[in-house]
């Protein structure tokens, strides 16, 4: 067997500036959403409106990370849905346990 040289037969492709620009744009959006959340934490009164806005912005950020950074949107539909559909059950779990928690609150206080 020949000694493997540290040389590659792979062809290095040139940078695709458009793709790289899109990555930085996504990064900018993520940072902007975080800044908005930050400002809201100090300017808005605490309550269901603020918490709802936080959750919506968080899910929005999660969507960007999964679609743009993890490229889930580029996978075929069966793979995409086998990841996303199970998460729907989590939404139900959140609703149920928030209800459970507030019932415990009523019992305790």
């Amino acid at each position, binding site marked *: 067997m020949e000694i493997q040289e540290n040389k590659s037969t792979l062809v290095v*492709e*040139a940078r695709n500036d458009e793709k790289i620009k899109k*990555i930085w744009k996504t990064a900018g959006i993520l940072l902007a959403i975080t800044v908005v959340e930050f400002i809201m934490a100090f300017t808005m009164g605490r309550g269901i409106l603020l918490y709802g806005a936080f959750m919506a912005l968080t899910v929005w950020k999660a969507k960007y990370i999964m679609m*743009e950074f*993890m490229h889930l949107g580029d996978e*075929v539909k*069966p793979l995409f849905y086998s990841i996303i559909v199970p998460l729907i059950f989590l939404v139900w779990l959140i609703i149920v346990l928030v209800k459970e928690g507030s019932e415990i*609150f009523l019992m305790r206080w």
Partner: protein
Amino acid sequence: MSAHSTAIGISSKRGVWGGGNEPLKASYGKLMMWFFLLSDIFTFAAFLITYISIRVSYPAYAGPADTFVGSNEYWPVPEMVFEALPFMHGVHAPLIFVGIMTFILIASSVTMVLAVEAGHRNDRNDVVKWMLWTLVGGVTFLSCQAWEWNHFIHGTDGGSVLTYVNSLGKVVQETVFGANLHVNEYGPAGFAQLFFFITGFHGFHVTVGVFLLFLCFYQAAVGVYDRRGHYEMVEKIGLYWHFVDLVWVFVFTLFYLI
């Protein structure tokens, strides 16, 4: 493989059930990474949903935020708990430090996706460069978290006067400094317990991620992936690293904002 004309690629030689098909058109490693991450989402979701449900079972602090004092009677206001900065003792800087940590982690996620993009182009120099930046981001984040924990455990100068059941089973009233799993100066015992378990579990994932990043950086630098003929490992480790960032986005909202 033959050209795919249907949604499920059918190998012309073997048919649908004969093997050799790639219905999800992703490699074994990438597929398994996705399903591992799905199971990890469930674990983190269990932690975070537990946090929410325990939180709503306690009264919220009702008064204005700037008159907040720690008590185990109500859930604390996060911006009054996480308000310290390293090297700036006594400065009231609500959420500034954790904001910086979030920026670091998102930035390292960006450099990771740039490394993945460079991997698609087989560009070894770019992969090595961006992997190194990601590694720096990961280590910085972990160091910040270490400081954050240290501060959380040791507490403020004043502490809080709490009435609680101590480890000997006696009801005592005394000044409590910092936090442990039994009692803490910020809020109910569950507050510190959940803080330790959730940010700790996340920090553990970051630590594993940093090891993986280093491995990937090293292998890329010495040309393992060039010899292998593809940079898919960068993509797989990238998925894991983005997931760590994804979880932090939720931890940040639930723990520090709400």
